[in-house]
């Protein structure tokens, strides 16, 4: 049963991840049929590379710590407190996560850079400093913590903590003994994701750090795409694999130890209006940090998209429907349609593959499946250029000749989407009390029926959240998309990058307008998903 469920994800990953990546690494490290280990020693003893490694590590650690510190209070507020505009804000904080870095970078520079808001107000400039990188990482990853931790938090039964209070525990102790252990897997999971994203950070480091700072990912890109030094790139890719793999295994162990069957309630039923000074000030603090760190950069984009030389207006938006501006064979707004179509296909693939994998991994796991759990996350820790070039040299012959097929884009996007689906679904699936399933089976339900009657109602919301994530990630995906040859159908981020790559106010204004549209499409998608979530039917 488990193997049957695993078959689809296994084949998917073997074909569209393992095989292409192995092909490109092999191209770098194999010479006349034999593996060459010489480059490895050479690369690892290079002081420049060591500096890159050290920077990669410590900035990821610092970014993760800062993100958790700022976003955990946010997760609490979204999970437990009710306030006007909550759903809108919840969708809004996820938007940065899916913005192409080139767009967010422009917004951040306008805030932190020379002549930016910070300098105007206090004379502080943060661009080309590590602070800009760290803050931008918070900007991008805030939603990861709020959604993974907050999603579970919202479903935790508050009566358990209340019971502990009744039994004499003070609030801190009750929280520490009851809520914290229940949340620990989600916190660990979120921290791991943030660490992964910042460990493999590419665009943020390039744009805000200036040329001085490089992460391992930036170095792999440079060695592959610019220098075509495949041996060095292969060694670095393997190194990144080793680091990411070690982290994932460590994570799998911690999560397993901390996992218990949780009592889940319907999301939202535990939320209430803020009570008391502590909750009100927490809410105020969270809203303020969101306003400054997340909404302000987004507002800068909107402001720029509307401000022409003759004052505010929609001139740049109108120009998007124009084919004769010359930047595209098609009008820029058509990119919206391409992005939505690619995103939809990528989401379906990611939901199928990730859903089957999560279902398989829910069964009490042996060592094999635990390893697979970790393996599913590997694409997140793999350089887009490695995957892109791998596709190119591996998927070029029948029966899998995809060199110029449109499906490459959604496939690459799904590769990044699957880990989200798995990570969102798995904690919820695992938290389902196995006795429920057993009871249903004893009463004569088929496995499929058990899944439909027991698991599905519980995971519906998680599945929607997962789909939202996968779709939004696909909308914003730039790294892999841009490396994969495709027909003349630019996605939104690709169109934005192309507009930014040309001189002239109109091009720049259109880029900002298109970024704003991308932002709104993402926000709308996420908002719809929030609405779609099941009502408070009290299934438990």
């Amino acid at each position, binding site marked *: 049963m488990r193997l049957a469920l695993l078959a689809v994800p296994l084949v998917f990953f073997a074909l569209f991840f393992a095989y292409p990546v192995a092909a490109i690494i092999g191209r770098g490290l194999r010479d006349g049929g034999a593996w060459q280990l010489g480059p490895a020693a050479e690369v690892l003893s290079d002081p420049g590379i060591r500096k890159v490694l050290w920077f990669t590590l410590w900035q990821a650690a610092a970014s993760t710590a800062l993100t958790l510190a700022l976003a955990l209070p946010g997760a609490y507020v979204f999970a437990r407190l009710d306030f006007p505009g909550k759903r809108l804000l919840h969708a809004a904080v996820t938007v940065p996560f899916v913005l192409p870095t080139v767009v967010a970078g422009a917004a951040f520079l*306008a805030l932190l850079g020379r002549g930016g808001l910070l300098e105007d107000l206090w004379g502080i400039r943060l661009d080309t400093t590590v602070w800009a990188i760290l803050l931008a990482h918070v900007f991008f990853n805030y939603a990861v913590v709020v959604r993974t931790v907050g999603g579970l938090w919202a479903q935790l039964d508050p009566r358990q903590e209340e019971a502990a209070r009744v039994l004499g525990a003070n609030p801190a102790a009750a929280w520490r003994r009851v809520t914290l252990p229940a949340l620990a897997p989600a916190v660990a999971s979120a921290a791991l994701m943030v660490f992964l994203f910042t460990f493999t950070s590419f665009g943020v480091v390039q744009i805000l750090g200036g040329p001085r700072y490089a992460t391992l990912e930036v170095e792999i890109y440079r060695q592959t795409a610019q220098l075509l030094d495949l041996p060095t790139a292969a060694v670095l890719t393997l190194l990144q694999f080793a680091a990411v793999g070690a982290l994932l295994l460590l994570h799998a162990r911690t999560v397993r130890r901390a996992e218990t069957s949780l009592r889940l309630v319907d999301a939202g039923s535990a939320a209430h209006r803020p009570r008391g000074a502590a909750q009100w000030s927490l809410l105020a603090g969270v809203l303020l940090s969101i306003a400054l760190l997340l909404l302000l950069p987004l507002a800068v984009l909107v402001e720029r998209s509307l401000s022409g030389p003759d004052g505010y207006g929609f001139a740049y938006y109108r120009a998007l429907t124009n084919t004769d501006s010359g930047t595209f064979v098609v009008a820029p707004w058509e990119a919206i349609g391409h992005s939505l179509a690619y995103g939809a296909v990528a989401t379906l693939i990611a939901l199928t593959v990730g859903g089957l994998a999560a279902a398989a991994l829910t069964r009490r796991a042996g060592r094999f499946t635990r390893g697979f759990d970790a393996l599913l996350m590997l694409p997140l820790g793999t350089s887009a250029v490695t995957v892109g070039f791998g596709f190119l040299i591996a998927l070029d012959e029948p029966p899998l000749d995809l060199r*110029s*097929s449109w499906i490459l884009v959604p*496939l690459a996007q799904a590769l990044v989407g699957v880990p989200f689906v798995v990570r969102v679904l798995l904690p919820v699936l695992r938290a389902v009390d196995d006795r429920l399933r057993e009871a249903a089976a004893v009463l004569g339900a088929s496995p499929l029926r058990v899944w439909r009657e027991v698991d599905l*109602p519980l995971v519906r919301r998680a599945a929607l959240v997962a789909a939202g994530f996968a779709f939004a990630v696909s909308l914003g995906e730039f790294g892999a998309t841009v490396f994969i040859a495709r*027909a003349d159908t630019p996605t939104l981020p690709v169109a934005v990058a192309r507009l930014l*790559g040309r001189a002239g*106010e109109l091009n720049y204004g259109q880029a900002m307008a298109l970024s704003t549209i991308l932002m709104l499409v993402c926000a709308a998608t996420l908002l719809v998903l929030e609405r779609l979530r099941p009502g408070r*039917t009290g299934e438990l």
Partner: protein
Amino acid sequence: MTRSSARRLAAALALSAAAVTLTACGSGGDSDGSGSSGGDQVTLVTHDSFNVSPEVLEKFTEQTGYRVQVLRAGDAGVMVNQAVLSKNNPQGDVLFGIDNTLLSRALDEGVFTPYEAAGLDTVPETYQLDAGEHRVTPVDSGDICVNYDRAYFAEHDLAPPQDLDDLIDPAYRDLLVVQNAATSSPGLGFLLGTVAAYGDDGWQEYWQALRDNGVEVVDGWEQAYNERFSGAGGGAGDRPLVVSYASSPPAEVIYGEGELPEEGPTGVSSGTCFRQIEFAGLLAGAGNPEGGQALLDFLIGLDFQEDLPLQMFVNPVRPDAELPQEFVTYGETIETPLTMEPQRIAEHREDWVSTWTSLVIR
């Protein structure tokens, strides 16, 4: 509720199964598209900056019967490296957009099949860097030059710099922003220009002086131009000098707002220019070599050549191609650009870039 969700999921599963089936079907042919036979289709692999008017492509189809499919493969460097990796089993038939800074890598790897395009005799020899073998055909040229913000220099009553020497003059301290030569093609072009001007011995000293004079380095053209340069229409930078192209001023005007002004808001320091020439070639192992040859002929035909300036902001290689009026009015013709042999670039590029990196960035 439960049942409708199950149905939604079932629909999702069915749809993605359909997607996978589609993949399998589409994999039979060499190129995708509407699923018609590959015989009347020719695939052009190019970089992200490629543009052409749709009616010009239609003209090609009318003349030859071939439909052009355009595959954009990232920036020029990534595109060339992809072509090297997929050698003999290429993604398309013709590759367009390889320039003289990258040419030798592709030629050494044997990416192209020789073909002498019809009409090549009208192209001046200075552009024909592979004249003996015709593995590539020159299509256009552009110059990487320092651009200046006219308003700034007028306001400060300062003459704009004319050549590379001026840039190290203290009068222009803290005014110039350039791109990282390791990650940006104008950045690399500007570095090559300084090597061409000052030689193997002198260029490092020159960059030391530039650094002492407060040059700022950013990673890409987009940041340099949109964020740091004060002359860019949409941007709000404070550096009035930026490394860009000789054709940026006309682009600035054409993509500016309102009526066409008498003079562009930005100008070009004509003594700082490094010439880039872009080539096209028939890919070795192309599925449709005849169509590829027809496309190469077309690329140096007058229809395409005259469409180039306002589509990609480059100069046609054919002297008899008529330039659009805006291009002439606001652009600058660089009579004596800095140049360098592709072979010399290939031999030293990595050394120069790494020396430059430790000299200027670290």
